[in-house]
């Protein structure tokens, strides 16, 4: 693309008068329709259907927290099954294969393959049903005309939170297929915290499900690791959220092994998951160990925030795509029952 593109770029940068016209032309007609033609649920269902019905190949770029990651994506479906291959182009090499809710991540450097079942992926329609009331209660949808992403016309909409306990989202949805082609997470001041988008995208690409399945089976020479998980309830483990955080419903709770250190030391940690339908929060609770757990702190990377706090003999790590204040509210509401 070099010369041609660079030439165009030069035009865009150099010819100021022209560039100005371009901005005006390229700025989407920001027709703010307060009464959305489609409800939040309609949009989400449409996006979900797109991933069930469309085959595509593309490059996906995620930027946030001063980092930029990209991956090559192959997606194929046959109406009942979905398969996906994600080949990282940045960071440590890894290939992720997904067949419906089964996920295998190949880490060629350590010759390890991680096998996981992402329950939530298979649950989508039910999840949406269960949460659509909450989503509609805590987010307002605004449509903002259309814009081009990765060469495709996309509808632009914004999901604005009604309170400061969650972030807003700006979503670009490809007009014909309903595929989400770009997503921005916005903080309360409307600043972009994280952006994920296809930088190139090709629909109806010849992706062979059989070939992907073959690649997914090819685990020879790799050590298979599965996270140990046991379904439980917070109550049974002696924890209660005395003060609920508005909009966030408990989704599930697990006792799980989490690789605690480089020595592959496995610790048992409780993971209690909450969601308001769009944002999710995990509360990790483990026994307090002075040499491992430092001072209470909070951090942020892109849209993901973390907060750590000591509860007597316990150590809490709250993680979520929510403001720190929301994590603090969870920490405040948490109480030990036993």
């Amino acid at each position: 693309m070099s010369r041609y593109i660079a030439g165009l770029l030069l035009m865009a940068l150099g010819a100021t008068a022209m560039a100005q016209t371009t901005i005006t032309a390229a700025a989407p007609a920001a027709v703010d329709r307060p009464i959305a033609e489609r409800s939040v649920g309609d949009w989400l269902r449409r996006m979900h259907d797109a991933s069930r019905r469309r085959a595509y190949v593309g490059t996906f770029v995620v930027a946030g927290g001063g980092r930029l990651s990209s991956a090559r994506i192959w997606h194929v479906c046959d109406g009942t099954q979905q398969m996906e291959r994600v080949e990282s182009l940045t960071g440590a090499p890894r290939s992720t294969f997904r067949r419906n809710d089964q996920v295998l991540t190949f880490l060629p450097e350590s010759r390890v393959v991680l096998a996981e079942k992402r329950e939530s992926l298979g649950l989508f329609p039910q999840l949406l049903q269960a949460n659509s009331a909450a989503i509609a209660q805590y987010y307002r949808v605004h449509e903002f005309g259309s814009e081009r992403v990765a060469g495709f016309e996309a509808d632009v909409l914004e999901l604005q939170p009604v309170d400061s306990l969650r972030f807003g989202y700006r979503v670009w949805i490809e007009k014909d297929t309903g595929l989400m082609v770009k997503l921005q997470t916005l903080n309360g001041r409307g600043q972009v915290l994280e952006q994920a988008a296809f930088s190139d995208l090709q629909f109806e690409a010849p992706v062979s499900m059989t070939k992907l399945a073959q690649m997914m089976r090819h685990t020879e020479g790799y050590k298979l690791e599965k996270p140990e998980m046991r379904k439980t309830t917070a109550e049974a483990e002696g924890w209660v959220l005395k003060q609920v955080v508005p909009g966030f419903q408990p989704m599930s709770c697990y006792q799980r092994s989490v690789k605690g250190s480089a020595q592959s030391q496995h610790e048992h940690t409780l993971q209690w998951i909450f969601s308001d339908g769009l944002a999710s929060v995990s509360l990790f609770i483990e026994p307090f160990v002075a040499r491992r757990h430092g001072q209470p702190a909070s951090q942020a990377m892109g849209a993901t925030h973390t907060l750590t706090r000591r509860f007597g003999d316990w150590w809490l790590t709250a993680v979520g795509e929510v403001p720190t204040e929301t994590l603090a509210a969870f920490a405040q509401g948490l109480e030990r029952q036993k």
Partner: protein
Amino acid sequence: MQEAAKNRELISALADGQLRDEDFARTVEGVTQTEDARLTWRTYHLVGDVLRSGEPVVSARDADFLQSLKLRLQQETPQLRPVAATELIANDPGMTGARVKNGSKYWSANDGRFRWKMLAGLASLSTVAVIGWQIVSGWGDLSGARQLALAQVPVQALQPEVGLTQPGVGAEPQRMIRDPQLDALLAAHKQFGGTSALQGPAGFLRNATFEGGAP
């Protein structure tokens, strides 16, 4: 030299999604090997984004930010003249007239700023300017490459400044300390990223792409 040019062509084709099978695998491998190749990859991505979005990189809704960036560039690297294109855009009165959409949040307070941040992460706007400049002197010109490398220095040094500020998160909110245990918990959280309707299928892509991203 010849090979470098060929590699650039391959990376360009990769960014355009034109490579298949062997070529694809080899080029992806190549991109991860050297810093130079990574830079080229990022640059092509940036160039692609700029072209596809149809907008100039700097949306100039952030005249103050541009002004302060310019100032800092001058302060921090007196030996380096700010690149002409930066100046051109920053000084253009037509472009600094922010277009406020009757209170609509469509244009984020930092949409422009975010692009800047991304640029800093990618290769800096200066690089873009240099790419433009390279046309004049021809592609693959070594002096161009050297300028490219030089031009990055000031903007990348600025990155912490450009980072978003968030109250209560700490002085450097965007810099996550690499702690293997926290990483493990983050990964465990991501496994349930699908607990969100938005983070459903696309969220899976986001997480699979982001996971273990190079610090």
